[in-house]
């Protein structure tokens, strides 16, 4: 992966000046590279990873396995589209294995998620079955460890 992308993936808030110092590229070049990535859809969005466990707005997250009936000609895509358009669905993946779609669904509490499943998702004619798993604790997200971090035990000074 390109150096600029690697740095941004790790820190989307890094300043142009710092990017310049880190890569040795000119400010103009970096702006051009970033614009290009944004245009091509390589950079989709600049987001922040929030450890919700530490905020007061906790909510609940569920991973929902969905078994669906593929449709003629368009396969899974159209059904998936029907499902990922629900605002409750945060992520949606097509998988191999015993079920077809894996959804990440967020809600205020268990009831919100339960009613989403029972009132919106399950009644869809192409949905054959669902299994909902509520998330209890997040240890790691997007490569970032959310629980107690390992600390380097280095002495402050050494040759």
């Amino acid at each position, binding site marked *: 992966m390109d150096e600029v992308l*690697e*740095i941004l993936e790790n820190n989307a808030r890094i300043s142009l000046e710092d990017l310049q110092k880190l890569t040795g590229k000119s400010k103009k070049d970096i702006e051009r590279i970033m614009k290009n990535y944004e245009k091509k859809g390589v950079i989709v969005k600049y987001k922040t990873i929030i450890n919700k466990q530490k905020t007061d707005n906790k909510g609940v997250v569920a991973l929902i396995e969905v078994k669906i009936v593929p449709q003629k000609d368009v396969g899974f895509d159209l059904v998936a589209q029907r499902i990922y358009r629900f605002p409750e669905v945060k992520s949606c993946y097509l998988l191999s294995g015993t079920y077809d779609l894996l959804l990440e669904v967020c809600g205020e509490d268990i009831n919100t998620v339960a009613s989403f499943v029972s009132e919106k998702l399950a009644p869809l004619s192409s949905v054959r079955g669902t299994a909902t798993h509520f998330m209890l604790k997040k240890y790691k997200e997007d490569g970032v460890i959310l629980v107690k971090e*390992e600390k*380097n035990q280095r002495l*402050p*000074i*050494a*040759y």
Partner: protein
Amino acid sequence: MISKRIKKVPPSGIREFFDLVLGMPEVISLGVGEPDFITPWRIREKAITALEEGLTSYTSNQGLLSLRKGITNLLEKKYSLKYNPEDETLITVGVSEGMDLAIRAIIEPGDKVIVVTPYYVAYPALVEICCGKVIYLPTKEGDGFKINLGKLKSLLSQNPKAIILNYPCNPTGITYNRKELNQIWNILSKKDIVVISDETYDELNYDKAHVPFSSLNRKAKKKTILLNGFSKGYAMTGFRVGFACGDKEIISAMTKIHSYSMLCGPIISQIAAVEALRARKEIGQMQKEYKDRRNFIVKEFNRLGLSTVKPQGAFYCFSSVKKYKISALDFAKKLLLQEKVAVVPGTAFGEEFNSYIRISYANSLENLREAAARIERFLSKL
């Protein structure tokens, strides 16, 4: 009670400064000579498994054959450099032990050893412990801290037994390309001199590929003891694994001392090191981060007026404080007390480097940025 030989070895002149740093909490330390990364998990996991499997015995004196083979394979792959893992390779307890063994194996009392300055602190001390005589080969900022060939030539008239090379270099971060190394070899080859080449930072080389001294030609290989290890490139300082490669006569002599003094390197660490050799991806990631930080810190320091020769490897830069007309030790002490940033005074690496400080950029970008801001504030008050 203490032998005269040991009494003669001077203690580190900046011990007092180190104690000052150790006693001060919440310091941003740019004085650490080891990676800020924790050993990659796959390496640690291997060590844990080895413990679970009860692999807690001695190994052969030379070290696990699987590790020696892994090392020689990697050297061949990376540098087309061939060593026999059976009798030309020895696993040591870090490069420090390798250096000690190399010097002990070849130095008679009174033998002279060339040490290039600024030097890693252990070199002169180890030579002196063997009753050898250190002759210094100074390098200057104006020469990019590289060996001056004329000076090297003139020192050879003193018939030194050995020369210690270290590149990428601690503390300057400079390294040599093939052409420069060939020039050095052309001078050395006129004399019967052993080259002890400490290449412990070979994995941390940012601009050009590293060239081991022993890869120059067959004669150079015969005369060279290659020392390297896992501490820096693989972030495994605490595991204490190094290795020595060289002519089998020298390796056999080093193994003899090692077998009586150390017996063998710790088996858990050796097993972890075998895994480390496979962790190329993790090593590459760390290398990339160091490179970014190097670019950052060199730009910042030159901007602040601390003239800095751009290091090509390791994770140090050796910056001049000459402009501020202050000694390195005073600079370091004041910076520590006023702004809680620790750097190592250049005098630790040779007494003539009284207007230089060594900065280690093995630290997070946030810390480096904060340290640079504090140094800027400090300089504005000087």
